Structures are given as structure tokens and as C-alpha cells.
């Protein structure tokens, strides 16, 4: 319990911040949603034309800058990449397709539950099932191969892009698209969102928070360390929502959610499956991209592309439920992720021993 104290406090803080973001203007049960916020940001840049979801979310900028600064301070900023980048892009794409079927990333899934949205229970079951399938592939030998050190310059691109985005948001907003109504029009004040994002970025980097990793560790090792923050978020957000009157229990008429259980299950199943093959949930990919992991930066671009594609081709669900196009896309997503899993299983069980190794003792 003692070793989990830090990570539990982190979860409690993030849970409370999430509730406050809703109180100050974010959409209900969406204090944080990495998928939704990337989707909104893609919309603000005109990458899709869904008018209700266009806004450069400062939370995303804050998360990346917070994690970047933290990784520099902790001497953990290491620029590396080259581990199947295009495959990761495709996996990122389908993580977003699954998330927009459910209407939320794993982080929003837990926040939806804390707001009383019982559809999230189905999502959690699907997410866990997807992770379980992913773990089967890992144990069979799935691997996207090793990373390599890259020029340091590469690692500064992602944080720089977010700084440029923030400058556009505050100094040149006319260059961006802004929703006038809908989820994109609901947001907390810019600097409040930015600071909250910074706090989450710092905490998530420090504690290597990952929604998929926590469940993976429970399945593989019965290790509850990494899942403890996920549970703490739930507790803090639940208490916060109850105190602020933001809690509404049930399946029906939940904010930015639908009640189609099968597709909620499958959407989050796809997110869990692809996230395990990627080695982390969307939040974790953001953090890694800030630490200099170019493969994760490519994955984030896959998420952006998936979000734009989902809204340009009517794949994203709405409160009315999933679309036919979205269902087809999720089925295709499962097929593609299975194929990626299958064709990346290493057959060799041989261990190649290095010669002339130098050890510093």
C-alpha cells in the first residue's frame, strides 16, 4: 500500500481536477478525454468539419508541455524511435475509431462512470476484454521490434508544435475554427485548462500513468500498482461529482453518451486491444511523445488522423447511438489489429548473446 501512496494521490488529484474542469465549463463527464480533446483540436485546425467539436483544447497542450518539462528535469528525455512507426500510426488510428464509437478514451470512461453513467461499465468490460486479447498476443511473441536512438532535434518537435498551437489559440484565434454550440463550445477558461493539463502532464510522467497498463499488469502479474491511480480517479471524481451535484446514475440520457451496449463494448474492446499492442493508452502515448518517443508521436498523429477521418466519414457515434459506418469501421479495426498482431509475432525463441560486453561496476 505504501508504494502505491504516490500514485493513489496522483489519481485523486486528477479526479478532482477533472470534476473542477466540468464545473468551470468543460462538457459533462469530460474533465479530461484524450480522444475527444484530440478530436476537438483536429476540428479547430479544420481537419474535419463537424462544427460541434472544434476547439484547440489547452489540456492537451498542458499535458505535453508538463510531461516534457518533467522528463527534462528528471533526465528522462530520450529521443528514440523506429519501432514499426507506420504500424503504430494505424493502431493509433483504430484506437481513435474505437474511442469515438464509445465516445471517450479510457480516462473519460472512468470519469463517465464517476458521473453515474452506467454505460461506462460496459465500456470497462470491453476495454478489459480487449486488453486480455492483447496480452494473449504479447505472450505469443508479439513485438513491434526495438527502438533506436534518434537525433535530439526530433524530440523537440512535438512540444514545439503544442507551443505553436497555444500561441495560435491566444494570439491568432481567427486562424482556428471554434464551435459555437455543442461539446466544442463547452470549455473551461483557457488558462485554467492549461494549468490543469500541466499538472496532469507532470503527474502522469512522474508516475508513468497508463489506463491500459494498469489492467495489463493485473492480468499478467496480479500487480495492482498501476491500476490504483485509475481507481483513485474514480473515487475522487465520484465524490466531487456528488458534492457538486454533477452525479446522475443510470444508462439513459447520459451526457455525450449512447446506450448501445454491444457497440460500447466493442468500441472500448478495440481501444484496449490496440492500446496493449501499442504499449499504452492515448494518455500514455501523449506523455511518451513528450519524453522524446517518436513512435508515440507518430501514434498521436494516428489518433489525430483517426479523429478527422471519423468525423469526415460519419464514423463517430452521437447521443443517438452508433452509425452504420462506425460499426463497419470498428469491425474493420478488429480485423486490421488482429492482422497486425498475427504478422508481428516473433517465431524465434533464440536469445542472441552479445560478446565483448562492458559492465560498469
Amino acid at each position, binding site marked *: 500500500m505504501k508504494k502505491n501512496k504516490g500514485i493513489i494521490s496522483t489519481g485523486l488529484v486528477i479526479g478532482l481536477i477533472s470534476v473542477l474542469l466540468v464545473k468551470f465549463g468543460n462538457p459533462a463527464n469530460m474533465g479530461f478525454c484524450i480522444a475527444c480533446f484530440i478530436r476537438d483540436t483536429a476540428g479547430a485546425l479544420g481537419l474535419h468539419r463537424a462544427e460541434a467539436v472544434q476547439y484547440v483544447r489547452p489540456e492537451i497542450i498542458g499535458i505535453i508541455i508538463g510531461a516534457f518539462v518533467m522528463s527534462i528535469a528528471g533526465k528522462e528525455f530520450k529521443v528514440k524511435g523506429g519501432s514499426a512507426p507506420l504500424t503504430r500510426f494505424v493502431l493509433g488510428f483504430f484506437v481513435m475509431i474505437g474511442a469515438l464509437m464509445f465516445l471517450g478514451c479510457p480516462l473519460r470512461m472512468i470519469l463517465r462512470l464517476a458521473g453515474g453513467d452506467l454505460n461506462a461499465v460496459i465500456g470497462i468490460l470491453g476495454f478489459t476484454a480487449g486488453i486480455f486479447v492483447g496480452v494473449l498476443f504479447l505472450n505469443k511473441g508479439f*513485438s513491434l521490434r526495438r527502438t533506436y536512438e534518434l537525433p535530439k532535434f526530433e524530440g523537440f518537435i512535438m512540444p514545439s508544435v503544442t507551443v505553436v498551437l497555444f500561441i495560435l489559440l491566444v494570439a491568432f484565434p481567427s486562424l482556428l475554427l471554434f464551435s459555437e454550440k455543442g461539446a466544442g463550445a463547452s470549455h473551461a477558461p483557457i488558462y485554467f485548462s492549461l494549468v490543469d493539463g500541466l499538472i496532469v502532464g507532470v503527474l502522469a510522467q512522474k508516475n508513468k500513468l497508463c489506463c491500459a497498463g494498469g489492467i495489463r499488469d493485473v492480468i499478467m502479474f496480479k500487480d495492482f500498482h498501476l491500476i490504483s491511480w485509475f481507481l483513485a480517479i474514480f473515487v475522487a471524481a465520484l465524490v466531487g461529482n456528488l458534492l457538486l451535484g454533477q452525479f446522475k446514475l443510470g444508462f439513459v440520457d447520459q451526457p455525450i453518451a449512447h446506450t448501445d451496449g454491444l457497440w460500447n463494448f466493442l468500441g472500448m474492446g478495440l481501444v484496449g486491444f490496440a492500446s496493449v499492442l501499442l*504499449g499504452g493508452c492515448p494518455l500514455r502515448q501523449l506523455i511518451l511523445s513528450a519524453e522524446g518517443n517518436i513512435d508515440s508521436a507518430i501514434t498521436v498523429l494516428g489518433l489525430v488522423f483517426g479523429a478527422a477521418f471519423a468525423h469526415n466519414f460519419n464514423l463517430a457515434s452521437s447521443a443517438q447511438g452508433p452509425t452504420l459506418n462506425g460499426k463497419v469501421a470498428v469491425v474493420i479495426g478488429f480485423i486490421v489489429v488482429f492482422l497486425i498482431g498475427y504478422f508481428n509475432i516473433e517465431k524465434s525463441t533464440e536469445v542472441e548473446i552479445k560478446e565483448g560486453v562492458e559492465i560498469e561496476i
Partner: protein
Amino acid sequence: MEYIALFYTHYGAIKYSKFLKSKNVENEIMPVPRALSSSCGICVKFSTTIDIRTIVSNDIESIFMLSDGEYKKIYQSK
């Protein structure tokens, strides 16, 4: 001596665990401790008297050795 080996890939750790078992070296696969790396992968913890230099595989990214109750990095792959 007690060591923790970190790997480039998940499967690298699984293969190495089996390799150690074949050499009768007791080992445990576990999540990478936060103190050793920000990586969210898995690692292999093992104790052996075998010269560590002779059992470093290509899949290993770094190795830490338990010394005075603390893990000290003794190997980093380039």
C-alpha cells in the same frame, strides 16, 4: 548477485526469462519499477553467480545490479 534487466521489447523479456530458466537461474518477470525507468514495459529480475558479461542478450536495453540496497545501472546498450 541480484539483477534487473530492462528490454527493448516485451517479447525480449519473455525470451530472456526462458533462457535464464534453461540455465537454472531463478527469475521473475514483472513491470518495470518506476525508479529504474519511465518505460511501461516489463523486466526480468534474477539472481545468479554467473558472470553477467556472458549472459547479456541483444534484446537487453539496460541492466541494474542490487548494491547496498539500491539498484545501480551497470549496463546500457548503445
